[in-house]
């Protein structure tokens, strides 16, 4: 009972302390709030990440690079008057973070990743004067642009690369969560491999999340043991574990042919061994989230934001493709990739976006 009384007092004190401070600062904030609001002539943009954060070496980071480039080109500063981001610590924070940015007067607010789709839908309806954009999902709404990618097309290209590189005639795919979005990567990759050689065996594993790198390591370990020599990962941070495993194997036995195909960004840096020369990254499927993010920001700046529009970034508009780092690719592979790219662009070759 004594303890209870103590606690009660403790919490009451805490509460009164908090309220007292709160009131004080509230007045202070009002004035700064007005200051912030007046010089708003710039087209300010901000984004909310999913749990990955802006240093995930993949998706969120790419989006943030797009915003930074936009900021640089328009000489905006990071912060309330230019461009900014908020990171989410849990699923519950998406709508709060989106709201926060909208209320602070950003003209365009991005939700990065399909996980934010519901939150974007809700917050966009509540803030009709702010523009929103969602990456990797389609959200209906007068003030929402949806940015989608033809991941299957890019995955088809790296599938071609994998098929031409493999010596064991066995390649692997490591996905993150088993979602339709990731199956799109898998479908394109499988089609690309089969396009070159239908006899190649493809092993598929899903780690079940996008965060835990240890699961990627375990998945890669199993696939390389099964004699796969090329693995394509689409598993976010979990996929970084695939690089770890490949590098370990390569260091243990430098003569062994071991390759990883990166995703979203040019992941050549992830595959570099300690000697600074050998690299296990064969190529990467670039998903230009940065280009997509910047495209919409540029359109908005020119007053041409189209609410309700569904953008598709594909091979044709350079929204997907293979990475610029091509040291491990032979000229005949590059030639073939180029040929296939043209065929897809012209429509002569149709890439399936769903598993057969």
């Amino acid at each position: 009972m004594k303890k209870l009384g103590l606690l009660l007092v403790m919490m009451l004190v805490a509460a009164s302390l908090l309220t007292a401070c709160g009131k004080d600062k509230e007045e202070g904030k009002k004035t700064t709030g007005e200051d912030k609001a007046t010089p708003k002539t710039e087209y300010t943009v901000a984004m909310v990440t999913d749990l990955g954060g802006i240093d995930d070496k993949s998706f969120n980071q790419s989006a943030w690079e797009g915003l930074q480039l936009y900021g640089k080109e328009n000489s905006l500063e990071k912060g309330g008057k230019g461009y900014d981001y908020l990171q989410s610590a849990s699923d519950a924070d998406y709508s709060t973070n989106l709201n926060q940015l909208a209320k602070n007067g950003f003209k365009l607010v991005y939700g990065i990743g399909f996980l934010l789709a519901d939150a974007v839908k809700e917050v966009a309806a509540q803030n009709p004067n702010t523009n929103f954009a969602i990456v990797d999902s389609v959200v209906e709404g007068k003030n929402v642009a949806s940015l989608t990618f033809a991941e299957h097309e890019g995955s088809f290209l790296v599938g071609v690369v994998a098929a031409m590189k493999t010596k064991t005639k066995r390649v692997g795919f490591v996905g993150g969560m088993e979602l339709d979005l990731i199956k799109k990567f898998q479908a394109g990759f499988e089609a690309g491999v089969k396009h070159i050689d239908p006899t190649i065996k493809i092993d598929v594993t899903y780690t079940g999340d996008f965060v835990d790198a240890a699961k990627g390591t375990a998945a890669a370990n199993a696939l390389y043991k099964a004699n796969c020599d090329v693995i394509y990962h689409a598993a976010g941070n979990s996929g970084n574990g695939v690089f770890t495993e490949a590098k370990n194997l390569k260091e243990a036995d430098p003569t062994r042919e071991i390759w990883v195909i990166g995703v979203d960004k040019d992941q050549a840096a992830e595959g570099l061994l300690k000697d600074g020369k050998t690299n296990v990254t064969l190529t990467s499927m670039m998903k230009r989230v940065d280009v997509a993010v910047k495209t919409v920001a540029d359109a908005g700046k020119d007053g041409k934001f189209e609410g309700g529009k569904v953008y598709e970034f594909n091979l044709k508009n350079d929204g997907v493709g293979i990475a610029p780092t091509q040291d491990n690719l032979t000229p005949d592979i590059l030639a073939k990739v180029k040929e296939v790219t043209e065929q897809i662009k012209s429509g002569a070759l149709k890439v399936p976006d769903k598993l057969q």
Partner: protein
Amino acid sequence: MNSTLKSILVPIVAILLGFLVGGIIMILCGYDAILGYQSLFNGIFSNSYFMGESIVKITPLILSGLAVAFAFRTGLFNIGVEGQFIVGWTAAVYVGTHFEGLSKVVHLPLAILAAAVGGALWALLPGILKAYLRVHEVVVTIMMNYIALHVTNWFIQEKMAAGGGTNTSERVFQTASLSWKQFSDWTAFSRLHWGILVALIAALIYWFILEKSKVGYELRSVGFNHHASQYAGMNVSKNIILAMLISGAFAGVAGAMEGLGTFQYAAVKGGFTGVGFTGIATAFIGANTALGVVLASFLFGGLQFGSLNMPYNSQVPTELVAVVIALIIYFIASNYSIRTLLDKIFTKGAK
């Protein structure tokens, strides 16, 4: 020093120390500590939206805290609250998205009940293993968390997802929803819902079961001493299982708060929500009493939510915010050492 004065002084010192050390860390890292705290408090109190959302954050914490505390009072360490929470969430949404046409009086309680049953069932297995085979509940409940996460993910994706590539269920019917339009209007579209009332009622029930009922007396007694209770004629195994069931039910209802209130749907999750784990902390700080858990949840939820405002308004990075919050909580949790410190200072002075 008299004890009333001390009981007021100790928590004040604890909180001040927490803020002080947190502030020093911010300054050492080159950030404006005053501005940092200012945005933390503004993030809770500066407008009705923030206040509403703070309560949204607090609501499930109260229930998950009660779940951990209940098990703890009966001698069990239920780390599986997170898993029971996720199962409860899924169960509530499943009921909430089915049975169209029921009246709210039936549908809403039914959905909450489903969550309680779901959470309780998830805690049943660890309870049975503990009661009859003496398998340690910590190990089993931790493992059950992972099973819960992946099983519900599968269930949501395969059985509940609306289709067309989405990974979320339909929204629950209005008749099963805890939200109320007025709340949303008053708080500038925050997701504030009736769940806070449910949580407070649950705290009352918790207090009644443990302190006022015969069942609660037996449960606590078994928690204190298995052997003595058995000698006194109590059925120890039955009581262990019952304790896990009730604890799991609280955790399940916490899930219903998210499923029927905050989110109104269930989504495939990439990882744990942390609500169940934070419940361990609120239970400890609240000394496993009903009122203590409620107050600790207010503190935790407030800090957690208010800190979302820090990166934007004071440029303090998210990672550092987590460190500062952890420090504040650390000092509050270690109020015992502060008490000893105060004792030393004051006895010296008296000499």
